[in-house]
């Protein structure tokens, strides 16, 4: 008999507001009250016809017939979600030096300006650039991180020029980003950045006091100098040529509103309320700087609310974490945020070429190496890309981050939007293979997806407009 409703494969989860969210293979979702959910599972044919139609349209209900068209549609939806992982490494991070003028407590990696030896050789820089072109991806982002790369502007310049020269024949779309405190930024650098379309990414942790407490330098004026750098960059490169990232420390938790307001005051269009990962800083500082997943939620929820408040008052500012989550939940096209890919983007769509001559799967992995755990080295800079992508580390990361292999993910409705983060597991537990539900990554994202689903369920039309706008991959989700 046609049209007799049958359950399709789904996963479901109770939300704190009493409703249940269920997701289908395609990543479409529906909300149920507990009684509706019982009815859905035991006798879907008794649900109101309109609701049945909505559930069919989300592939939570189907019927017996062979539906080759619908089957193809679901397959193509799943493929679209994976496309960004499969098209080859698109984000290439070069760490030319670990030197930095700051001595941030949560930063484990940077070395003082007097330090010798934590800097990449010219040979390695050129070899890294050549490897980048071995990637199949037509669009490439090359990001310089540190330390503070502007302390060795000569190396950044060398790399950009080398890449540009080769690109005359390669014809790829290359986007350059330099992550820096901007303290060293001068007009000559800006002239160079303008010529080669280099974007700047800096750090602002919040209002002056918080920022200066988080990021100490001898003059105690890190904030002032970064803001000066931002102003110079905007003047010479344009307002949108510089973005900022913040790191949430335990000192940040008390006043997320002030942090958001600071970003609005400085005219940024994005703010990324990022948690501090448990491995970016020395273990001894954990108690001083660390905080629980729950504390981060509270901070995040308040911060997001503040961002939404500004938007409803006509100030355009996006919260990047929400953009990432909403992209997963609401968009057919994946923006390719590395940490939520399955298999992980680390070591497949992202590669890090470190000052030490080795290639790592992600920024976090090279930081882990600084704490002594060098197990995530994929190979030496200069090895063929093919070898790096097929290395034992890359293969283990892929296996460890595949949702289908992870018991804790199989029953999770968010497994279409998320996946295990093995680099995180390695940092937290010293192994890639750990039951996912034990990881901070899992606890945090379950909570964040829960929170966003509750937002969506009760959102008015204007808020939904904003959420769909944020969900578009063009929102330029950063790693």
């Amino acid at each position, binding site marked *: 008999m*046609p*049209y007799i409703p049958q359950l399709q494969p789904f996963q479901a989860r109770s939300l704190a507001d009493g409703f249940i969210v269920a997701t289908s293979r395609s990543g479409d979702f529906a909300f149920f009250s507990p009684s509706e959910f019982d009815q859905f599972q035991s006798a879907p044919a008794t649900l109101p016809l309109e609701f049945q139609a909505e559930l069919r349209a989300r592939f939570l209900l189907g019927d017996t017939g062979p539906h080759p*068209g619908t089957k193809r549609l679901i397959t193509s939806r799943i493929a679209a979600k994976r496309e960004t992982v499969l098209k080859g490494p698109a984000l290439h991070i070069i760490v030319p030096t670990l030197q930095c003028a700051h001595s941030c407590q949560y930063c484990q990696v940077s070395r003082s300006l007097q330090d010798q030896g934590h800097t990449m050789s010219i040979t390695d820089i050129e070899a890294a650039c050549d490897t980048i072109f071995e990637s199949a991806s037509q669009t490439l982002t090359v990001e310089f991180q540190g330390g503070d790369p502007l302390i060795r502007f000569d190396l950044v310049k060398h790399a950009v020029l080398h890449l540009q020269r080769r690109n005359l024949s390669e014809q790829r779309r290359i986007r350059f980003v330099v992550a820096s405190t901007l303290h060293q930024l001068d007009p000559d650098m800006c002239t160079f950045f303008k010529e080669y379309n280099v974007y700047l990414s800096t750090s602002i942790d919040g209002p002056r006091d918080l920022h200066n407490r988080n990021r100490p330098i001898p003059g105690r004026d890190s904030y002032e100098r970064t803001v000066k750098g931002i102003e110079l960059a905007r003047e010479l490169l344009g307002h949108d040529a510089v973005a900022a990232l913040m790191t949430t420390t335990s000192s940040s938790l008390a006043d997320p509103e002030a942090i958001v307001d600071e970003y609005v005051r400085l005219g940024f269009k994005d703010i990324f309320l990022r948690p501090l990962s448990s491995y970016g800083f020395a273990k001894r500082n954990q108690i001083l700087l660390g905080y629980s997943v729950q504390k981060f939620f509270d901070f995040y929820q308040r911060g997001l609310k503040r961002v939404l408040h500004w938007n409803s008052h006509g100030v355009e500012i996006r919260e990047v974490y929400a953009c990432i989550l909403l992209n997963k939940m609401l968009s*057919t096209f994946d923006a390719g945020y590395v940490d939520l890919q399955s298999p992980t983007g680390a070591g497949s769509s992202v590669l890090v070429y470190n000052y030490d001559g080795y290639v790592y799967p992600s920024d976090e992995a090279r930081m882990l190496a600084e704490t002594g755990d060098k197990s995530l080295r994929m190979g030496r800079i200069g090895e063929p890309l093919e070898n790096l992508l097929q290395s034992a580390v890359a293969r283990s990361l892929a296996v460890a981050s595949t949702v289908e292999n992870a018991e804790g993910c199989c029953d999770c409705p968010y497994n279409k939007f998320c996946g295990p983060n093995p680099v995180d597991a390695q940092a937290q537990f010293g192994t890639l293979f750990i039951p996912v539900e034990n990881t901070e990554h899992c606890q945090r994202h379950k909570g964040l997806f829960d929170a966003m689903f509750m937002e969506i369920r009760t959102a008015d039309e204007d808020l939904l407009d904003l959420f769909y706008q944020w969900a578009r991959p063009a929102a330029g989700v950063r790693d």
Partner: protein
Amino acid sequence: MRRIKVRLQAQVEMCVHRVVTYENLASEWSPDLRFFVLVFSAENQAGTEALRQSGLANIAWIEGKGLQEGDIVVPVRDKQEVLVLLREADAHHSLFMTNRCNSYCLMCSQPPTLGDDGWLVGEAIDAVRHLRKSPPVLGLTGGEPLLLGTGLRQVLNAIEQEHPTTHVEILTNGRLFSNRQVVSDILDGLTMPARWLVPLYGHCNFVHDFVVQTQGAFDETIGGLLTLQAHGQQIQLRIVLIEPVLRVLPELAAFIGRNLPFVREVALMGCEPIGFALANRELCEVNLHEWGETLERSARTLRRFSIPYLFMNAPLCALPQSLWSDAHRSISDWKNEYAAECDGCAVKESCSGLFSWYERGWKPAPIRPIKQAETIV
């Protein structure tokens, strides 16, 4: 299609001709085409007959009010009448490909018949050959053109050859693209600029299948759309605004956004009050004005997914003002009219107006003239 009463020279072939003036006959004449010479005097008529007798077998005189130079016409057997297949001055040009169909839509304006009308393919190719000026867009309609298989491809090839700059729009339910042979016959190696206009009436099988009165149609249309996408073809989805569709329209819009983001645009169309729509009046007659909120919500949903949309066959006074800029003048010239109320309307110039058979059927909403003051937002 226009029918025009004519006087026609005896013993003409019952096939496609181009209408030409007596003065231009010499410059347009070609041995492989057929011409009706539009005559206004006994002198021209005699002249045409003389030419024919002297060996120009592919010309004959015609007389008829309303005929225009360049018209592509075909005589109706046993009647002093011609059908105008194509007219240069029209804003919309289309060729009728078949009256057969594999769906049975509630509001079908062109109820299908069973008889073999394969000769229409030859007639379409002939019309394309006779057409003097390449139109920017040429529509192919039915019935269901995919039923013609290779026949449709022959028409496409003829258009590509004769009118390489013309964009073709094929109105199809896409269902037969679930058949590999049809896909290969029609799409393999097809490089001409084509757009496929495919109706979708529901966000799930039982809604769509009900509207098209055919079990399994939804799944086949979805498969067809994916096939068109895989072949890099442009798609316009078409949604006719009858009651069972309006009831699910916002959900349908979201379904399109999630699943079919590759379509170029979605056309939301007022129902043509003719054909099956008259028989299913209780489902097809709606007052669009009462559905304004539904239309706005659906448009908003499509915007969320960045999917372009437009309204067709919907007079501006039937739409919320927020949607006016999305409404197009879409009704084919020969069946487009305005109501008495439209005189004095400030936006008549940019309004689609009505299907000329609204008198026998219904209007999409109570029609009222818009005052100049209302147009200032």
